[in-house]
């Protein structure tokens, strides 16, 4: 029979498990920021907590709250959030060998398919380590993201009027930080540039909400040009 400390040591000895756990801890700090911003944008604490539990995909959560905070209508918020959630479907398609066989555990595993768990799983070579990396990272991010959101909601409740604190700048600055890792790839850079131009051109022409949705044309354009080559 292994003691608790022996088990912990065994867990910690696997680099993929250790890294996955620590990544979740780091993502937890983003969860705190999400909670603070959501509450300051007029989302109730309960709603912010439910968003993290049920949506569990950061960029979409920030996008929905960001659009709502600037007075955007619900359909624009939903559209922007879902465009950003679509990539999780592509991750899920590539994770079939990682998914458990039981129906119930598959339903749970599906919720854990996000950027971090996919990236950690794909970085492994052996199938067993791939599975472990997925579960450890997914569960660690889930735990700390939701804990962080709860802390953020409690802290954010005391912040007060978001405009005096300049919190409306936090959303675009946060999106920028999320965008930067994508800019290393040439085609993603092109998609981002095209999306930005489309949004800028359509702001004066179309009702609020449309410019963000139409920015997705940047992805269509670059994917089409690439497939012709």
């Amino acid at each position: 029979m292994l003691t608790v400390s022996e088990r912990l040591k065994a867990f910690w000895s696997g680099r993929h498990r250790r890294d996955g756990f620590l990544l979740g801890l780091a993502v937890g700090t983003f969860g705190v920021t999400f909670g603070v911003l959501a509450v300051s944008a007029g989302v109730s604490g309960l709603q912010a907590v439910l968003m993290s539990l049920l949506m569990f995909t950061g960029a979409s959560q920030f996008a929905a709250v960001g659009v709502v905070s600037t007075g955007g209508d619900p359909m624009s918020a939903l559209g922007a959030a879902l465009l950003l959630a679509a990539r999780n479907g592509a991750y899920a398609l590539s994770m079939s060998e990682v998914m458990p066989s039981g129906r119930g555990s598959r339903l749970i595993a599906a919720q854990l398919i996000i950027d971090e768990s996919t990236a950690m799983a794909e970085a492994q070579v052996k199938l067993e380590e791939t599975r472990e990396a997925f579960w450890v990272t997914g569960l660690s991010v889930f735990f700390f993201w939701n804990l962080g959101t709860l802390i953020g909601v409690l802290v954010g409740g005391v912040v007060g009027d978001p405009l005096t604190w300049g919190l409306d700048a936090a959303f675009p600055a946060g999106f920028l930080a999320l965008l930067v890792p994508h800019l290393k790839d040439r085609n993603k850079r092109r998609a981002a540039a095209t999306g930005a131009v489309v949004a800028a051109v359509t702001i004066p022409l179309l009702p609020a909400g449309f410019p963000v949705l139409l920015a997705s044309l940047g992805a269509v354009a670059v994917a089409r040009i690439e497939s012709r080559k």
Partner: protein
Amino acid sequence: MTWWLLGGLAAGCYFFKITGVLAAGSFRLSGAGQSFLAYLTPAVLSGLIVVQTFDGGGRLTISALTAGVTTGAVATWMKAPLPAVLLVASAATAAIRLL
């Protein structure tokens, strides 16, 4: 935020994940489909950045907000961690509004 919106967001986000899981094995994305999904995130994120930084009610506008976001961009470029970036962008915006 209305409860309808919250329900739609939760259902929509899970829909992509579970559909991918259920379709894996019987369905493969084409190369162009994969590229499109890979490019969608940067395209929409940059659209959001432009709109939330420059949209002053249907007009392209330079404001305290624009300056604050630019300060956040500099912090990002200097590899500051996300909470620090958000703090810097917010503080700069608030400071300029006080002027």
